[in-house]
Structures are given as C-alpha cells and as structure tokens.
C-alpha cells in the first residue's frame, strides 16, 4: 500500500501526466481500429489518430527506444516512465520503409514536438493501406486510471492521453 502511495506522490500527486498528440487528425478509440493487435488492446491501451498530415512528432520528452528499420512505428520511453508506441497505419511494415523518412535514430534523446517521421500520406493511402495511427501505452499495467480523449479533430501536440 505504501508503495502505491509513494508512486503516486512521485508522480506529483493529483496532477496527471499527459501524452500529447504526435500527429494531427481525427482521434478515435482503439475499438475502431481494424486490427486485433490494437482493438483487443494486446499491445496495450491507448487511442488512435486518423492522420490528416504526414508527420509524427514526439509526444513526450524522453528517449527514442525503438525506431523500426521500416520506419512504420516508433516507441518513446518518456522521462516519467511511460512507454509510448506510435504505429503509423496497419500492416505498413510491408512497405519496408517506402514512403517513410526518419529524422531520429534509436537511442537518441527526443524533446516533445521534435520531428520523428514524415510519411507520404497520399501515396501510402493510394496503395490501399489504412493509415489509422494507434498511440499505445505499452506499459499499460502501470496506469490503471488512464484516460483518452477521442471523438474529435485534434492538432499536433494537443493532450490526448492522461496517465
């Protein structure tokens, strides 16, 4: 019990931490994502954004803990401990990096709002891919009271998840 209390206090007591939108677009619940890995919350809880702009920025200050070679997904470990994964589109691993550009390397420090990826929104959609971009908290178990803001258009760096 003291452990949880301590953890709570360490996180600044009542004030919740926020994850900001890594991309501009329509915020939707994971249940609307047409892929069981996401809609059944296998990778963790979170939400998704249907992008209206082909750029991904860092949603937190932290370390770029994963940058896939195929550049279709990244994960940032926030300074507060949250592991945030951003997966651009569904099955986009098959593009083998085509249409994606990365601006940071795995292991590098990133600041909130820093450009991580650019992608060819029209080109990738034109190939028939669903570009819905899940934003997942991989260490979901540590945040039982997570709250996601969905059902509206959001701008880059608007708060989307409260931990």
């Amino acid at each position: 019990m003291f452990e949880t209390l301590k953890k709570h206090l360490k996180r600044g007591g009542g004030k919740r931490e926020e994850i900001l939108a890594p991309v501009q677009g329509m915020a939707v619940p994971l249940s609307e994502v047409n892929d069981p890995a996401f809609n059944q919350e296998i990778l963790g809880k979170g939400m998704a954004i249907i992008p209206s702009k082909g750029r991904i920025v860092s949603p937190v200050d932290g370390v770029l803990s994963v940058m896939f070679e195929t550049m279709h997904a990244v994960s940032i470990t926030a300074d507060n401990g949250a592991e945030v994964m951003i997966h651009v589109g569904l099955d986009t691993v098959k593009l083998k990096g085509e249409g994606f550009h990365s601006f940071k390397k795995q292991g590098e420090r990133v600041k909130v709002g820093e450009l991580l990826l650019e992608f060819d929104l029209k080109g990738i959609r034109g190939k028939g891919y669903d570009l819905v971009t899940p934003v997942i908290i991989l260490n979901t178990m540590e945040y039982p009271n997570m709250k996601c803001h969905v059902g509206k258009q959001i701008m880059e760096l608007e708060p989307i998840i409260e931990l």
Partner: protein
Amino acid sequence: MKEYRYVVEDPMGLHARPASIIFIEAGKYMCSIEAYWDLQKADCKSLLAIMGLGAKKGDEVVFRFEGEDEDAAYYAIRSVLDKR
C-alpha cells in the same frame, strides 16, 4: 535453465506483431524469460524490450528460461514461434 535458439523467419524481423506474440505468451509464466541477440538482452515480459532488440530476418535470438515453470514456458514459446 532452458535455452531455445530461434532464427527469425519473419521477413520484417521482430516487429510489433511477432514481438506481441512472444510478449503475450511470456506473460503467462512465472519464470524469467530473456531474449539475447547481438550483445543485447531483452526481458520478454516487456513488449518494448523485445521490439527494441531490433532482430532481423535470419538473426539467431537465444531465449533463456529460468524458474520453476521454465519447462512449460520453453515449450509454449517454442510452439508459438515455430508456428510462424
């Protein structure tokens, strides 16, 4: 301690989907399950750690199981990986 040497078959390496399959299975067992590749070590109970290994097609990843239910975990991880 049990060990399983697995050569990555997925053409895209251990990306989100295969990593999540290992992660889900690993979470069912009490024993420690670690994956080693290229001087790196990943706790298989962390999805981020598995994906962070960056193992690619053809790479040999060594899984080590240690703890009371290591036999069960070994066979479970083997069966999900060999199915792929």
